[in-house]
Protein backbone atom coordinates (compact mmCIF):
# COMPACT_ATOMS: atom_id res chain seq x y z
CA UNK A 1 0.00 0.00 0.00
CA UNK A 2 2.84 2.40 0.90
CA UNK A 3 4.69 1.58 -2.32
CA UNK A 4 1.56 1.85 -4.46
CA UNK A 5 0.53 5.26 -3.09
CA UNK A 6 3.96 6.74 -2.32
CA UNK A 7 3.65 9.21 -5.21
CA UNK A 8 0.26 10.37 -3.96
CA UNK A 9 1.48 12.07 -0.79
CA UNK A 10 0.50 9.08 1.30
CA UNK A 11 2.47 7.81 4.29
CA UNK A 12 2.07 4.75 6.48
CA UNK A 13 3.38 5.12 10.04
CA UNK A 14 3.37 1.99 12.17
CA UNK A 15 3.61 2.18 15.96
CA UNK A 16 4.26 -0.91 18.06
CA UNK A 17 2.41 -0.70 21.40
CA UNK A 18 5.19 -2.85 22.71
CA UNK A 19 8.63 -2.89 24.29
CA UNK A 20 9.83 -6.13 22.68
CA UNK A 21 12.06 -4.53 20.06
CA UNK A 22 13.47 -7.82 18.77
CA UNK A 23 10.02 -9.32 18.20
CA UNK A 24 8.83 -6.14 16.49
CA UNK A 25 11.93 -6.13 14.31
CA UNK A 26 10.96 -9.60 13.05
CA UNK A 27 7.43 -8.41 12.23
CA UNK A 28 8.83 -5.31 10.52
CA UNK A 29 11.24 -7.24 8.33
CA UNK A 30 11.11 -5.92 4.78
CA UNK A 31 8.83 -3.01 5.68
CA UNK A 32 9.91 0.29 4.14
CA UNK A 33 7.76 2.72 6.13
CA UNK A 34 8.69 3.92 9.63
CA UNK A 35 8.07 1.51 12.50
CA UNK A 36 8.10 3.29 15.86
CA UNK A 37 8.33 1.77 19.34
CA UNK A 38 5.85 2.85 22.03
CA UNK A 39 6.91 0.98 25.18
CA UNK A 40 4.99 3.37 27.48
CA UNK A 41 1.75 3.10 25.48
CA UNK A 42 1.57 6.83 24.71
CA UNK A 43 -0.82 6.23 21.81
CA UNK A 44 -3.30 4.36 24.01
CA UNK A 45 -3.65 7.60 26.00
CA UNK A 46 -3.63 10.09 23.13
CA UNK A 47 -5.97 8.18 20.81
CA UNK A 48 -7.94 6.07 23.34
CA UNK A 49 -6.66 2.88 21.76
CA UNK A 50 -7.71 -0.25 23.64
CA UNK A 51 -6.77 -3.06 21.29
CA UNK A 52 -4.61 -3.73 18.25
CA UNK A 53 -4.55 -3.54 15.39
CA UNK A 54 -6.08 -0.10 15.32
CA UNK A 55 -5.68 2.15 12.31
CA UNK A 56 -6.36 5.89 12.19
CA UNK A 57 -6.64 7.86 8.97
CA UNK A 58 -5.11 11.32 9.34
CA UNK A 59 -5.44 13.86 6.56
CA UNK A 60 -2.86 16.30 5.19
CA UNK A 61 -4.01 18.97 7.69
CA UNK A 62 -3.64 16.76 10.74
CA UNK A 63 -7.34 16.05 11.07
CA UNK A 64 -8.60 12.57 11.79
CA UNK A 65 -10.45 11.50 8.66
CA UNK A 66 -11.45 8.11 10.06
CA UNK A 67 -10.88 7.26 13.72
CA UNK A 68 -9.59 4.06 15.35
CA UNK A 69 -10.69 1.10 13.28
CA UNK A 70 -9.92 -2.54 13.92
CA UNK A 71 -8.39 -3.26 10.49
CA UNK A 72 -5.99 -6.15 10.00
CA UNK A 73 -2.95 -6.17 7.76
CA UNK A 74 -3.52 -9.81 6.87
CA UNK A 75 -6.51 -11.98 5.97
CA UNK A 76 -5.71 -14.43 8.77
CA UNK A 77 -8.91 -13.47 10.63
CA UNK A 78 -11.17 -12.76 7.62
CA UNK A 79 -13.18 -15.90 8.26
CA UNK A 80 -14.25 -14.44 11.62
CA UNK A 81 -14.50 -10.76 10.72
CA UNK A 82 -15.92 -11.05 7.21
CA UNK A 83 -13.49 -8.25 6.41
CA UNK A 84 -10.60 -8.57 3.98
CA UNK A 85 -7.37 -6.61 3.86
CA UNK A 86 -8.20 -5.62 0.30
CA UNK A 87 -11.57 -4.21 1.45
CA UNK A 88 -9.67 -1.77 3.67
CA UNK A 89 -7.10 -1.03 0.97
CA UNK A 90 -9.84 -0.20 -1.57
CA UNK A 91 -11.25 2.32 0.90
CA UNK A 92 -7.79 3.86 1.40
CA UNK A 93 -7.34 4.16 -2.38
CA UNK A 94 -10.71 5.95 -2.65
CA UNK A 95 -9.65 8.31 0.15
CA UNK A 96 -6.22 9.08 -1.30
CA UNK A 97 -7.37 9.41 -4.92
CA UNK A 98 -10.87 10.88 -4.57
CA UNK A 99 -11.02 12.15 -0.98
CA UNK A 100 -13.91 9.78 -0.27
CA UNK A 101 -14.26 8.33 3.23
CA UNK A 102 -16.49 5.39 4.18
CA UNK A 103 -19.74 5.96 6.11
CA UNK A 104 -18.22 4.63 9.34
CA UNK A 105 -15.66 7.48 9.31
CA UNK A 106 -18.14 9.70 11.14
CA UNK A 107 -18.40 7.22 14.04
CA UNK A 108 -17.83 8.71 17.46
CA UNK A 109 -15.31 7.01 19.69
CA UNK A 110 -16.15 6.89 23.38
CA UNK A 111 -13.71 8.70 25.65
CA UNK A 112 -11.68 6.74 28.16
CA UNK A 113 -13.38 6.60 31.55
CA UNK A 114 -11.60 7.28 34.86
CA UNK A 115 -10.77 3.61 35.38
CA UNK A 116 -9.37 3.17 31.88
CA UNK A 117 -7.22 6.26 32.37
CA UNK A 118 -5.99 5.06 35.76
CA UNK A 119 -5.27 1.62 34.30
CA UNK A 120 -2.94 3.22 31.74
CA UNK A 121 -1.00 4.99 34.50
CA UNK A 122 -0.70 1.78 36.53
CA UNK A 123 0.50 -0.03 33.40
CA UNK A 124 3.12 2.64 32.75
CA UNK A 125 4.34 2.42 36.34
CA UNK A 126 4.43 -1.39 36.19
CA UNK A 127 6.42 -1.37 32.94
CA UNK A 128 8.84 1.15 34.44
CA UNK A 129 9.29 -0.87 37.64
CA UNK A 130 9.84 -4.05 35.66
CA UNK A 131 12.58 -2.43 33.57
CA UNK A 132 14.14 -1.23 36.82
CA UNK A 133 14.17 -4.82 38.13
CA UNK A 134 11.33 -4.50 40.65
CA UNK A 135 9.30 -7.57 39.64
CA UNK A 136 7.05 -7.52 42.72
CA UNK A 137 6.22 -3.83 42.32
CA UNK A 138 5.55 -4.42 38.63
CA UNK A 139 3.20 -7.33 39.34
CA UNK A 140 1.29 -5.22 41.88
CA UNK A 141 0.64 -2.46 39.34
CA UNK A 142 -0.04 -4.79 36.39
CA UNK A 143 -2.71 -6.34 38.65
CA UNK A 144 -4.12 -2.93 39.57
CA UNK A 145 -4.28 -1.99 35.88
CA UNK A 146 -6.05 -5.23 34.97
CA UNK A 147 -8.63 -4.74 37.73
CA UNK A 148 -9.43 -1.25 36.43
CA UNK A 149 -9.64 -2.18 32.74
CA UNK A 150 -10.14 -5.96 32.62
CA UNK A 151 -11.10 -6.07 28.92
CA UNK A 152 -8.50 -3.64 27.56
CA UNK A 153 -5.99 -5.62 25.52
CA UNK A 154 -3.35 -2.88 25.67
CA UNK A 155 -3.51 -3.22 29.47
CA UNK A 156 -4.13 -6.91 30.10
CA UNK A 157 -2.74 -8.76 27.10
CA UNK A 158 0.24 -6.44 26.65
CA UNK A 159 1.24 -7.28 30.23
CA UNK A 160 1.27 -11.03 29.60
CA UNK A 161 4.74 -11.32 27.99
CA UNK A 162 6.07 -8.83 30.56
CA UNK A 163 4.84 -11.12 33.36
CA UNK A 164 6.29 -14.25 31.83
CA UNK A 165 2.94 -15.43 30.49
CA UNK A 166 2.25 -16.37 26.90
CA UNK A 167 0.09 -13.81 25.06
CA UNK A 168 -1.30 -16.81 23.14
CA UNK A 169 -1.86 -19.06 26.15
CA UNK A 170 -4.66 -19.92 28.55
CA UNK A 171 -4.82 -16.39 30.05
CA UNK A 172 -5.32 -14.93 26.61
CA UNK A 173 -8.16 -17.26 25.68
CA UNK A 174 -9.86 -16.46 28.97
CA UNK A 175 -9.55 -12.74 28.19
CA UNK A 176 -10.82 -13.25 24.64
CA UNK A 177 -13.86 -15.15 25.88
CA UNK A 178 -14.73 -12.45 28.44
CA UNK A 179 -14.16 -9.75 25.80
CA UNK A 180 -16.49 -11.41 23.32
CA UNK A 181 -19.11 -12.10 26.00
CA UNK A 182 -19.06 -8.37 26.77
CA UNK A 183 -19.77 -7.60 23.11
CA UNK A 184 -16.13 -6.88 22.11
CA UNK A 185 -15.84 -3.37 23.61
CA UNK A 186 -13.23 -1.90 21.25
CA UNK A 187 -12.66 1.87 21.45
CA UNK A 188 -13.37 2.45 17.81
CA UNK A 189 -14.87 1.13 14.62
CA UNK A 190 -15.40 -2.55 13.97
CA UNK A 191 -15.51 -2.48 10.17
CA UNK A 192 -18.44 -3.99 8.33
CA UNK A 193 -17.73 -7.06 6.21
CA UNK A 194 -16.10 -6.28 2.86
CA UNK A 195 -18.29 -6.28 -0.22
CA UNK A 196 -17.77 -9.46 -2.22
Amino acid at each position, binding site marked *: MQDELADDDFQV*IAVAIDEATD*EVRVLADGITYPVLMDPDHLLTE*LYAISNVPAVVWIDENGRIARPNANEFGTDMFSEFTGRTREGHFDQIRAWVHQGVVPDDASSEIADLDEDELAAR*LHFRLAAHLRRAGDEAGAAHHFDAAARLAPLDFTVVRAAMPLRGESPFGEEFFKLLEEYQEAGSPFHGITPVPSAQ
Partner: protein
Amino acid sequence: MTSITVLGDEVATASGEWVDGRPLIEPEGLPAAIGWTLKPEGLCRDDQCVPVRDRSVIEVGDKVDVAAAASGLDRPTLVDPDTNTVVVGQPNATRRAALLDRQAPDFTLADLDGVDRSLSDYAGKRRLLVAFSSW
Protein backbone atom coordinates in the same frame (compact mmCIF):
# COMPACT_ATOMS: atom_id res chain seq x y z
CA MET B 1 14.96 14.75 51.37
CA THR B 2 14.50 11.96 48.93
CA SER B 3 14.51 11.47 45.21
CA ILE B 4 11.05 11.25 43.62
CA THR B 5 10.69 9.77 40.15
CA VAL B 6 8.21 11.45 37.83
CA LEU B 7 7.07 9.45 34.81
CA GLY B 8 5.72 12.18 32.55
CA ASP B 9 6.67 13.13 29.02
CA GLU B 10 10.13 11.99 30.07
CA VAL B 11 11.41 10.12 33.08
CA ALA B 12 12.63 12.71 35.58
CA THR B 13 13.88 12.60 39.12
CA ALA B 14 13.23 15.46 41.50
CA SER B 15 14.54 16.19 44.95
CA GLY B 16 11.76 16.36 47.52
CA GLU B 17 9.87 14.58 50.27
CA TRP B 18 6.57 12.83 50.96
CA VAL B 19 4.28 14.64 53.36
CA ASP B 20 0.95 12.98 54.20
CA GLY B 21 1.23 10.95 51.01
CA ARG B 22 1.83 14.03 48.89
CA PRO B 23 4.87 14.25 46.60
CA LEU B 24 6.45 17.62 47.42
CA ILE B 25 9.42 18.59 45.29
CA GLU B 26 11.77 21.54 45.05
CA PRO B 27 10.23 24.11 42.64
CA GLU B 28 13.39 23.99 40.49
CA GLY B 29 12.54 20.37 39.63
CA LEU B 30 9.11 21.18 38.24
CA PRO B 31 10.06 22.04 34.63
CA ALA B 32 11.97 18.77 34.20
CA ALA B 33 9.10 16.83 35.78
CA ILE B 34 6.09 18.28 33.96
CA GLY B 35 7.47 20.85 31.51
CA TRP B 36 5.91 23.84 33.34
CA THR B 37 7.21 26.37 35.86
CA LEU B 38 5.29 27.81 38.80
CA LYS B 39 5.32 31.63 38.61
CA PRO B 40 3.29 34.35 40.34
CA GLU B 41 0.89 34.39 37.35
CA GLY B 42 0.37 30.61 37.42
CA LEU B 43 1.86 27.55 35.76
CA CYS B 44 3.85 28.75 32.77
CA ARG B 45 5.54 27.30 29.72
CA ASP B 46 7.12 29.47 27.03
CA ASP B 47 4.85 32.54 26.86
CA GLN B 48 1.75 30.65 28.00
CA CYS B 49 0.44 30.69 31.57
CA VAL B 50 -2.40 28.75 33.16
CA PRO B 51 -3.84 30.52 36.21
CA VAL B 52 -3.91 28.50 39.42
CA ARG B 53 -7.19 28.95 41.28
CA ASP B 54 -5.98 27.90 44.71
CA ARG B 55 -2.21 28.12 45.11
CA SER B 56 -2.33 26.35 48.47
CA VAL B 57 -3.27 23.16 46.62
CA ILE B 58 0.05 23.24 44.75
CA GLU B 59 2.40 25.19 47.00
CA VAL B 60 3.23 23.68 50.37
CA GLY B 61 5.83 25.71 52.24
CA ASP B 62 8.83 26.09 49.95
CA LYS B 63 7.87 22.98 47.95
CA VAL B 64 5.50 22.10 45.14
CA ASP B 65 3.08 19.18 45.04
CA VAL B 66 4.02 17.82 41.62
CA ALA B 67 0.86 15.71 41.31
CA ALA B 68 -1.39 18.67 42.18
CA ALA B 69 0.47 20.81 39.63
CA ALA B 70 -0.08 18.13 36.96
CA SER B 71 -3.77 17.90 37.90
CA GLY B 72 -3.98 21.67 37.53
CA LEU B 73 -2.84 21.17 33.95
CA ASP B 74 -5.67 18.69 33.35
CA ARG B 75 -3.34 15.70 33.37
CA PRO B 76 -4.35 12.45 35.10
CA THR B 77 -1.93 11.39 37.84
CA LEU B 78 -1.02 8.34 39.86
CA VAL B 79 0.85 8.83 43.10
CA ASP B 80 2.71 5.86 44.60
CA PRO B 81 4.72 6.60 47.76
CA ASP B 82 5.71 2.90 48.03
CA THR B 83 7.90 3.19 44.95
CA ASN B 84 8.62 6.92 45.28
CA THR B 85 6.95 7.52 41.94
CA VAL B 86 4.44 9.89 40.39
CA VAL B 87 2.96 9.03 37.00
CA VAL B 88 1.65 11.91 34.89
CA GLY B 89 -0.61 10.99 32.00
CA GLN B 90 -1.26 12.92 28.79
CA PRO B 91 -3.56 15.96 29.02
CA ASN B 92 -7.24 15.02 28.94
CA ALA B 93 -7.87 17.92 26.55
CA THR B 94 -5.50 16.44 23.94
CA ARG B 95 -7.34 13.12 23.88
CA ARG B 96 -10.73 14.84 23.82
CA ALA B 97 -9.61 17.02 20.91
CA ALA B 98 -8.87 13.81 19.04
CA LEU B 99 -12.14 12.11 19.90
CA LEU B 100 -14.51 15.08 19.68
CA ASP B 101 -12.81 17.59 17.35
CA ARG B 102 -10.83 15.15 15.22
CA GLN B 103 -7.52 16.91 15.85
CA ALA B 104 -4.81 14.23 15.55
CA PRO B 105 -2.49 14.55 18.56
CA ASP B 106 1.15 14.84 17.54
CA PHE B 107 3.67 12.50 19.16
CA THR B 108 7.36 11.66 18.92
CA LEU B 109 8.68 8.12 19.29
CA ALA B 110 11.91 6.38 18.35
CA ASP B 111 11.94 4.10 15.32
CA LEU B 112 13.66 0.69 15.28
CA ASP B 113 16.99 2.41 14.59
CA GLY B 114 16.52 4.70 17.58
CA VAL B 115 15.77 7.77 15.44
CA ASP B 116 13.02 10.03 16.84
CA ARG B 117 10.11 10.51 14.46
CA SER B 118 6.96 12.57 14.84
CA LEU B 119 3.56 12.36 13.22
CA SER B 120 4.09 15.99 12.18
CA ASP B 121 7.22 15.02 10.21
CA TYR B 122 4.75 13.82 7.59
CA ALA B 123 2.46 16.87 7.64
CA GLY B 124 0.98 17.63 4.22
CA LYS B 125 0.49 13.94 3.49
CA ARG B 126 -2.46 11.68 4.10
CA ARG B 127 -1.27 9.35 6.82
CA LEU B 128 -2.28 5.87 7.85
CA LEU B 129 -1.36 5.42 11.51
CA VAL B 130 -1.21 1.73 12.35
CA ALA B 131 -1.01 0.62 15.98
CA PHE B 132 0.10 -3.01 16.26
CA SER B 133 2.06 -5.26 18.58
CA SER B 134 3.89 -8.55 18.92
CA TRP B 135 1.60 -9.71 21.73
